[in-house]
Each structure stands twice: as C-alpha cells, then as structure tokens.
C-alpha cells in the first residue's frame, strides 16, 4: 500500500506541496546539496512535522519520501531508511515549536544569502523586493552547526513573535510561512533582495535607501494581502514542475 493510502488527505496534500517546494528551491538555484531543509507542520497533528530524508538531494524528493518527526526528534515514519539532519531538526523544531502561526519553515545557503548574512549592516532597504522585510526581519548570531538543542530558545527569541524571516548570521537565510506557498514566496523575494543588495554594494557607489515612510507603507501594502501572493503563484509553480518532472507528487 502506498503512503498516499496510509495518511490523511491533508497530510498527503502537505507532502505533495512540500516536495514541490524542495524541487522549486532546486529549480531556482537555492539548494545546497543536502545541506539545508524545509520543515512543514502536519495538519491535525500539532506534535509532528515533515522534513527531508537526509541524503536525498532536493530534486529527488517526493511526497512519500518525506520523514515525519515529533518535537522530541523521534522519527514517526515507519520503514524510512533515511533519518533527518540533526541541525535541521534543531532549527525547524525551534521555529515550528515556538510559533503556532507558522506552518512551514524554509532554510537556504545561497551565495547572496550567505554574503548578506555576513554583513554587519544586515538587509538594506534598497529594492522593492526587500520592502516585504522592512523593519520585519530578525537576526541570529552564529553558534556553530546547530546540533545543540539549547540553541532552540535563542532561535525562538531572535525570530520573535511576528517576523516571518530570519537572517542566520554567517550562515544563511530562513523564511516562515503560514503555509508552504508563503514560505517559498518569502524566500524567493528575500533571495532576490540579497542578490540586488550584494550587486549594488559591490559597486562602492552611493546607494539610494528607501525612506522610512515609504518602507513602512510598502511593507504594509504587501502584508495586507496575507498569503495571497504565495497562493496566487503556486498553481504556476506546480504546472512548471509538472512539465519538468512530475515525480515530486509520488
């Protein structure tokens, strides 16, 4: 019996969307072999979330291969030969465990994201894309590979109660979503913000910073749409994956 028949329709849908999210990160050049992870809460199971099987590359991940774990780190998926990444468990259990409003937590190690994560100035208000994060992004100091579960409380403290994005200093980026679609959308925008910032700053020329008023106004414009931007784009993303390789939905 395939996994599809053994889980709830809601869990299956989450698995398909989460597998799609992994494939999309790879398609848009935001993967790093097996080095990062995306976690998604299992609908109806407050104590469980899904993570990637450690060892599969992002373009290989399928709905059925995702591993269900609880917040104690126990693997709940029977007969999975894979485990989960220990640092991934720390980071995503911290975010999903600390924020009931977050259903998906997404982490990358991209060139531009790592570069901005090493800048004392953090993310600058230089682009429309970055307005989504205007005065709405958090920072977490680097402590080493996140296998020490004590770091969970500092991750939760640094992310805070409302922000949906976190820069992991000297490490990479993290976005949150009220659904998987929103987490992907936030990351797509954050990645582009970082790319534009790195390029603009590399010139050494004087930069135009968006004013505080316009920054606050634009962030609120964007936030007022809830998850709509992520939801609106999702069918197109799935059509794209379906054209390339529909095996994510397996």
């Amino acid at each position, binding site marked *: 019996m395939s996994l599809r028949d053994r889980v709830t329709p809601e869990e299956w849908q989450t698995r398909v969307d989460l597998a799609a999210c992994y494939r999309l990160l790879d398609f848009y050049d935001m993967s790093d072999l097996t080095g990062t992870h995306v976690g998604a809460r299992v609908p109806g199971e407050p104590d469980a979330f899904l993570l990637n099987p450690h060892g599969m590359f992002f373009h290989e991940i399928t709905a059925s291969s995702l591993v269900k774990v609880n917040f104690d780190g126990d693997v709940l998926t029977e007969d999975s030969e894979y485990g989960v990444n220990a640092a991934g468990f720390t980071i995503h259990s911290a975010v999903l465990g600390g924020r009931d409003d977050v259903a998906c937590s997404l982490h990358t190690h991209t060139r531009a994201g790592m570069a901005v994560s090493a800048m004392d100035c953090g993310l600058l*208000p*230089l*682009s*429309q*894309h970055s*307005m989504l994060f205007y005065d709405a992004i958090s920072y977490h100091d680097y402590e080493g590979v996140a296998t020490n579960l004590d770091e969970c409380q500092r991750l939760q403290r640094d992310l805070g109660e409302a922000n949906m994005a976190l820069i992991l200093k000297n490490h990479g980026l993290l976005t949150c979503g009220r659904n998987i679609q929103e987490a992907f959308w936030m990351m*797509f925008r954050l990645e*582009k913000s970082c*790319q*534009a*910032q790195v*390029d*603009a700053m*590399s*010139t*050494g*020329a*004087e*930069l*135009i910073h*968006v004013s505080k008023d*316009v920054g606050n*106004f*634009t962030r609120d*414009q*964007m936030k007022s*749409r*809830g998850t*709509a*931007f992520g*939801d*609106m*784009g*999702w*069918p*197109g993303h*799935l*059509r*794209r994956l379906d054209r390339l390789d529909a095996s994510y939905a397996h």
Partner: protein
Amino acid sequence: MSALAAIDVRPEDIPTMREKVSPEEWETRVNLAACYRLVDYYGMSDLAGTHISARVPGEDDNFLINPYGLFFDEITASSLIKIDMDGNILSDTEYRINAAGYTIHSAVHGARHDVQCVLHTHTRAGMAVSALKCGLMPMSQHSARFIGNTGYHDYEGVATNLDERERLVADLGPTNTAMVLHNHGLMTCGYNIPHAFWLIHKLEKACQAQIDGMAAGTKVIEIDQSVQDSTAVHFKKGGTAGADRNWPGHLRELDRLDTSYKH
C-alpha cells in the same frame, strides 16, 4: 483579495482568439507572447511579478497585458488580456491583471503615443543599478544608447496608486525610451515590440557590465561626452532597424524550443 485568488487555468486550455480578433491584433498578440517568452529565456523574468504591454493596432486606447498568475514561459497569444486605459478588462478570461502593472503601463500608453510596447523587469543587475545614486553610467557601448535618453523615477511603494501615473509620465519625459525605476527595476518603451525587447536586452547588459566594472574597485573609464553624443545620434538614426532585423531570429529561437507561444 479576490484579485489574487489562485487561478489555475492551463494556457493550452484557453480557447484560441485567432478567429475572434483582427489579423493585426493577432500578430501583436503573437509577438507580445514571444516577447514574454524571450524575457524569460534571457533570464529577465521574475515569476508573475513584472509585465509587458502592447498597444492594440487600430485601437489606440486599448492594450494587451499578461494574465496575472501565468509565468512568462507559459504565456500564449490567446491568453493575453486586452484592457482599456481605465483598466476595464475587454477580454473574456478567468484571469485578472496585476494592479501595479495597470498603473505603470496605462501611464506610458496614455501619454506617449509614439510608444507601442512597454516592458518592465526586476533583474538582479537592473535592481542593483536602480539603487545607485549615480544611475546608469556611460561605461559601455550598450549604455551609450541610453545616456541622455533615460528617465529616473523615485520609488513610492507598490504602484497601485493611480496618482503615481502623472509622476511616471513626467519622469519618463516626452522622448525617452527607457526609465530606471529607483529601488525597483528597469523599463523600456519601444516603437514596436521587437524594439522594446531589443532595448531591454541592451539595458540589462549595460547594467550587468556596470555592476561588474564598478565592483572591481578600480578606476572606471567613462566614455567622452563627444563620443557619447555621436553614438547617441548613430543609435537614434537606426530607429527600430536593429530590432526588426533580429526579430525573425528570436522567433526561430522560440520555434526550436516551444512553439506554444503562438497558440
């Protein structure tokens, strides 16, 4: 909120408009769909976040724009949405249009009747140059085309406030064919669709070279004013000829990849 509800109509399931529109409108639709595909193929798309519009031949007050939610590599001639200057949707479609796209494109089409196609991007290099006080620098042959022929517009937030149109028009001016949208991206205005694409291809490369040239941290050579001036005259005289010459090659390029843009 409803304007952003997820819509999932596959472009191949949209009935053909070919028999329902004039041959001139159909040709414009095919070329505009091709332009969307090319912007994607050349790495200048941003999901559904930007837009390209073209005036409908013989209908000066109507223009075609993308169905919001289709990505650029999915757009077809029949899926493009016709709207008027007031933003009324004249096509029979389940898709909506992007509100900021309407603001930006209706501003240019309403004020500049020499412009047939308006093309807007959010590229890495374009966004980066848009955040520089110095603007586009006369650092490359590609940039020489734009020096003295490019407007600059300050960022005001997502362009859903229709009052912004006056300022967009004033900043673009009566003859410029490109504009840097500060802290946002790039825009080109073509005398036809091939021209708008040709201009964005040049402007994008000019921005890429500027970023890399300036990033080196070494002294930059700026093109002499007299050479800038003579180059500008040279390019002006060329009009749309270079763009028109390349367009069949672009269509052959697309035809080898995926001919569905013509649907």
